[in-house]
């Protein structure tokens, strides 16, 4: 019937619209000449001349919200039907049918079929509107090169499919290779019913902030795969950069040479990560002490001189250690993170996305766009009753049933609500005027963020700790935040935000490739939640991990199994979501070999 392109259905035309399209050559070709775009929002309306006052040809009424222009002959008629008589627009259509049945709502630039008496949609019409809107928001109005390429036929779109999961068994040659080039991991795993990699971490003295983040990282699929595939071999790395040949990588128990330890080989956080991955996935279930890592990280954090080594916020630690992994690798390969491509190091490859920021002039609509890479998204937890409009609609539709939880839902903060807030258009204050290149003066602006490129793993950080310059104003926000187990990020993508800004037109907006894989890329699954309980200055971090669809609580050295309801009700501080494609749901029933 109709196919989905980029999450959007392309509706089939009504027979009258279809007729019109077949009979007229190049419909809507010069439409954009008549489209007036109102800054800054891009609302489009139809005017022959910019200053004309449209009126109904039949009765002269001026109400622009009810006027329709016939697309065949440009006759303008009104559509108010008083006392049961057909409106002038309907009469025009009936009189001159079949060719004059489609009209344009001149105030909204929408197609209306007078015969079907319904709003109808056409891709080329929408494309013309978007062209006009884009021209209005770029410099000089002429620079736009947004000419839509010929719309791909829906059948061609499904080129890149998700590959279905198939279990792999090695063939004879591969088995021989495995047998000759590898050995099973030392030690029996006495707990085959629990996934490998599940292991407690000893608290080394107020280090739960570190333990909680490490637990999440050990189970971040692309990161785990990277280290377990030996992509950063700590022996090789240390051998290359170590001058005195000490084996300085074993984290615990072995004596690290006779020197004073300060020059134990250069610090490489990736090597220490590699060591920890090996230890945690070894099958040994006694709690592990990440002492060497702590030692290395403290040196790194001290070097950057901007955070105390005592930094005890889990999120700050997360940023700091990713930076540490990047720094070491970056020196080797001279790549920077500035383009957000993630080519520089594994940390950015996994976590880095690109944010788009649009600043729109309120006076002329000129839009200036910048892109910045980001490693995570920090969200405000607003004190107001932060329900999104969708939530409110759902609540009111349920209230008729008298369900008690509908009123409860109405006041809850949600992760999607925070993301809505993050991506909404905000009017910057009049004391924050930006210089508009088109107007050539400082103007008030509208700013809007959106996600240009999603990372493989999205980390959402909830700003629960508020510090102000006076110590007394530090406080923690305990407010509950609802977060879903499955998250669809497509409404926050630049393409969706742009589409909404331009009136939800059928058009492949920025960043959308003409194939269907975008749907899959924006679906995410939750796999780790770092929670904080207690007060600002006396609290505790705990991580919940989702492995094989079972939730585990990692509280320093204690690993226990918990019901998912515990997790749903927990106070999320950092939530880790991985792209659904990388989340091996199919293996959830099988024990990890």
């Amino acid at each position, binding site marked *: 019937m109709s196919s989905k392109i980029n999450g959007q259905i392309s509706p089939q035309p009504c027979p009258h619209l279809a007729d019109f399209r077949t009979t007229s050559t190049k419909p809507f070709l010069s439409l954009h000449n008549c489209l007036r775009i109102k800054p800054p929002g891009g609302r489009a309306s139809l005017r022959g001349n910019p200053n004309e006052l449209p009126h109904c040809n039949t009765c002269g009424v001026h109400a622009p919200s009810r006027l329709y222009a016939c697309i065949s002959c440009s006759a303008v008629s009104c559509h108010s039907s008083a006392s049961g008589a057909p409106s002038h627009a309907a009469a025009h259509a009936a009189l001159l049918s079949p060719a004059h049945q489609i009209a344009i709502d001149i105030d909204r630039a929408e197609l209306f079929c007078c015969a079907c008496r319904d709003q109808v949609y056409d891709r080329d019409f929408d494309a013309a509107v978007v062209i006009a809107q884009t021209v209005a928001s770029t410099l000089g109005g002429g620079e736009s090169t947004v000419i839509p390429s010929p719309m791909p036929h829906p059948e061609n779109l499904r080129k890149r499919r998700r590959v279905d999961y198939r279990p792999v068994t090695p063939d004879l040659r591969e088995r021989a290779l495995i047998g000759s080039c590898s050995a099973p991991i030392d030690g029996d795993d006495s707990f085959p019913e629990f996934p490998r990699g599940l292991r407690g971490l000893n608290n080394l003295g107020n280090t739960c902030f570190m333990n909680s983040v490490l637990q999440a990282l050990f189970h971040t699929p692309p990161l785990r795969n990277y280290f377990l595939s030996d992509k950063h071999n700590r022996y090789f790395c240390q051998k290359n950069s170590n001058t005195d040949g000490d084996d300085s990588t074993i984290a615990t128990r072995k004596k690290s040479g006779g020197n004073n330890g300060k020059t134990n080989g250069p610090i490489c956080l990736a090597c220490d990560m590699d060591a920890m991955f090996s230890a945690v996935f070894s099958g040994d279930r006694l709690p592990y002490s990440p002492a060497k890592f702590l030692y290395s990280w403290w040196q790194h954090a001290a070097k950057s001189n901007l955070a105390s080594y005592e930094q005890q916020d889990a999120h700050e630690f997360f940023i700091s250690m990713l930076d540490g992994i990047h720094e070491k690798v970056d020196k080797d390969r001279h790549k920077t993170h500035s383009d957000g491509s993630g080519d520089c190091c594994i940390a950015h490859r996994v976590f880095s996305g690109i944010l788009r920021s649009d600043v729109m002039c309120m006076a002329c609509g000129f839009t200036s766009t910048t892109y910045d890479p*980001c490693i995570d998204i920090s969200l405000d937890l607003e004190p107001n009753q932060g329900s999104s409009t969708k939530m409110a609609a759902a609540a009111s539709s349920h209230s008729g049933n008298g369900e008690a939880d509908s009123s409860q839902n109405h006041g809850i903060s949600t992760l999607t609500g925070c993301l809505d807030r993050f991506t909404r258009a905000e009017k910057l204050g009049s004391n924050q005027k930006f210089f508009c290149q088109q107007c050539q003066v400082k103007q008030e602006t509208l700013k809007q963020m959106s996600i240009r490129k999603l990372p493989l793993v999205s980390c959402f950080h909830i700003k629960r700790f508020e510090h102000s310059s006076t110590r007394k104003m530090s406080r923690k926000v305990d407010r509950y935040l609802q977060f879903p187990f499955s998250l669809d990020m497509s409404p926050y993508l630049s393409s969706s935000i742009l589409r909404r800004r331009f009136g939800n037109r059928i058009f492949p907006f920025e960043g959308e490739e003409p194939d269907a894989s975008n749907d899959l890329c924006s679906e995410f699954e939750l796999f780790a939640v770092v929670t904080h309980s207690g007060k600002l200055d006396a609290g505790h971090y705990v991580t919940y991990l989702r492995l094989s669809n079972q939730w585990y609580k990692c509280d320093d050295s204690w690993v226990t199994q918990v019901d998912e309801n515990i997790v749903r009700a927990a106070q999320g501080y950092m939530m880790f979501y991985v792209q659904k494609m990388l989340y091996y749901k199919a293996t959830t029933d099988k024990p990890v070999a």
Partner: protein
Amino acid sequence: MSVSEEENLSSSQSQISSHFFCDLLDSVIVDVASECHRIAKLGLDANLDEEDEELKLSAQARARLADPSNSNESNGKYVVDIFGQTHPTVANEIFDCMNCNRSIVAGKFAPHLEKCMGKGRKARLKVTRSSSGSGAQNRRYSRGNNSSANRLANGNLRFAGDKHSNGSSQP
């Protein structure tokens, strides 16, 4: 003007204003209807059901947790972990410090390292905030003494040369 003329004038004025109001109201209604129609026809509102489902599950979870008749699984003391092990409050594994090579108990490694690496003001100042409730198995972390709290209170610390923004909504 006579009274009746004034009355006529005011009634025609109220007619006109009422007419304007109706026009505006019509316009607003058609705006919303048109937008919602488009959103529905183009399938852009597809996720509402899933979101409602998640909200419902979350509300149920919280209700269940608040119910005092349910045993408090998550907080409180642990008896045994999934591997059948128990762990003391202070981790008692012993290893060597990579800085000074002394044998250190794991649970005291961090404070030792602070002094050992010579960084800690803690090394000189008495630690004022220690964990209350010695029986608690959960480790408590403290924000340290006054000076470090000041450092933390300097606002959202970001690492300079940090080329990536964290996407906060500050312009």
